[in-house]
């Protein structure tokens, strides 16, 4: 089956149905491995066991940004190539991206309290991620507010692309701003360079979360295709009732 066949929603549904069980199994295995590595990872000499929060915080951050990039590619697919599944991919990715960004913010906050004494600080990285979260919510709001699916898709595509251009600018501005207003003490969020015994669990968990995203995304795309079919059928029903 050629790649182009994936553009056909029916074929996509069939393929998704076949792949999902395998993806689910792979995700579970990846988490089993990743978590086991996280448990046995040695304590950081500065932060103690608290460094283990990194294994669920950093992958969430990576995914939050990666998913917006993915949505931007889908946006191009909608606007430039009019790929039929691009809309579906973009719409379903947004809530998942928002959830991972939220996870990043909350776990980061819980990491910050014992380590640096405060739940929140307006430094460059935290603030940029907060703004990213707000932009996710904005895109989701736009999807939900415009009723007609293909119009909503095109509007969301424009917003996603404008956001993609603006995110590096926001990151730069916020970093610049936080270096202006940073108090005397230097907050080092990165910590020391990562030792392999901590790097391995981190990568393992990152792969696990990535597989989780792919599984969830595929399943959500399947749901969205079904939802659109329901809409089409209901409209057919309404047309028939109106005698058209």
């Amino acid at each position, binding site marked *: 089956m050629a790649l182009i066949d994936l553009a056909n929603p029916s074929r996509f549904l069939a393929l998704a149905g076949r792949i999902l069980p395998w993806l689910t199994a792979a995700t579970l295995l990846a988490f089993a491995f990743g978590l086991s590595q996280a448990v046995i990872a040695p304590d950081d000499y500065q932060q103690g066991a608290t460094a283990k929060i990194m294994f669920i915080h950093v992958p969430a951050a990576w995914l939050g940004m990666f998913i917006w990039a993915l949505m931007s590619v889908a946006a191009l697919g909608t*606007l430039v190539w009019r790929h039929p599944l691009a809309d579906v991919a973009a719409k379903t990715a947004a809530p998942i991206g928002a959830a991972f960004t939220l996870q990043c913010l909350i776990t980061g906050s819980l990491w910050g309290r014992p380590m640096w004494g405060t739940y929140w600080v307006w430094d460059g990285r935290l603030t940029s991620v907060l*703004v990213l979260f*707000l*932009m996710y*919510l*904005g895109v989701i*709001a*736009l999807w939900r*507010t*415009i009723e007609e699916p293909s*119009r909503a898709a*095109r*509007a969301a595509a*424009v*917003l996603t*692309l*404008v*956001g993609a*251009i*603006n995110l590096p*600018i*926001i990151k*730069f*501005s*916020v970093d*610049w*701003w936080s270096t*202006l207003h940073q108090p005397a003490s230097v907050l080092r969020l990165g910590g020391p360079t990562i030792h392999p015994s901590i790097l391995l669990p981190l990568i393992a968990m990152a792969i696990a979360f990535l597989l989780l995203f792919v599984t969830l995304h595929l399943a959500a795309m399947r749901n969205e295709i079904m939802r659109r079919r329901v809409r089409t059928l209901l409209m057919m029903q309404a047309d028939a009732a109106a005698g058209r």
Partner: protein
Amino acid sequence: MNALAALMIRDMRLAVRLGGGALIGILFFLIVVTLVPFAIGPDLALLKRIGPAILWIGALLASLLALDRLIAADHEDGSLDLILTARVPLELTVAAKAIAHWLTTGLPLVVAAPLLGLLLNLDPKASGAVALTLLAGTPALTFIGLIGAALTVALRRGGLLLAVLVLPLTIPVLIFGVAASNAAIVGPLPFGTPFMILCALTLMTLVIGPFAAAVALRHGLE
């Protein structure tokens, strides 16, 4: 180009005539600046320190409120359809509308800022700095707002959504606008650095705004 000039003049006449855009914007600006001391307390030293920030946020919110007159008003009375079918490229048309919008709602805010600075105990140098940064930055706010207005044009109650979409995008402008103002007042940064970046941001939005808005309008109204 005659068509664009005509469009701009028409927009400006409408904005001034309906007693809307221009004067209401300044009034809202005044009200916001008045509200802040009620919330913070009349401590003049504190107000002086955060004065530039208050003025910038007031201008930002006032710009935001005026945005529904940018495109939605034309959509309601049908002129938007005429604009879309005109021979002039849509990108230029929306840019012209945005310029007209800024002249009637953004520029008055710039003029009002030094006067409102008096209420916040800003000295003339500070007020001048804030006004200059607003002059450079309010076009960016208008052109970013243009994108949001184009995206939400056909929505009936799109006002709040418009704000939610536009505000995160305006954060860099706000950051550098206030930073430039403060640099002029207390240093140690030279005023030029953040001011140049602010101007760069505005120039970028002058290009990105019309293109994104045109795409949004073309696709959103099919």
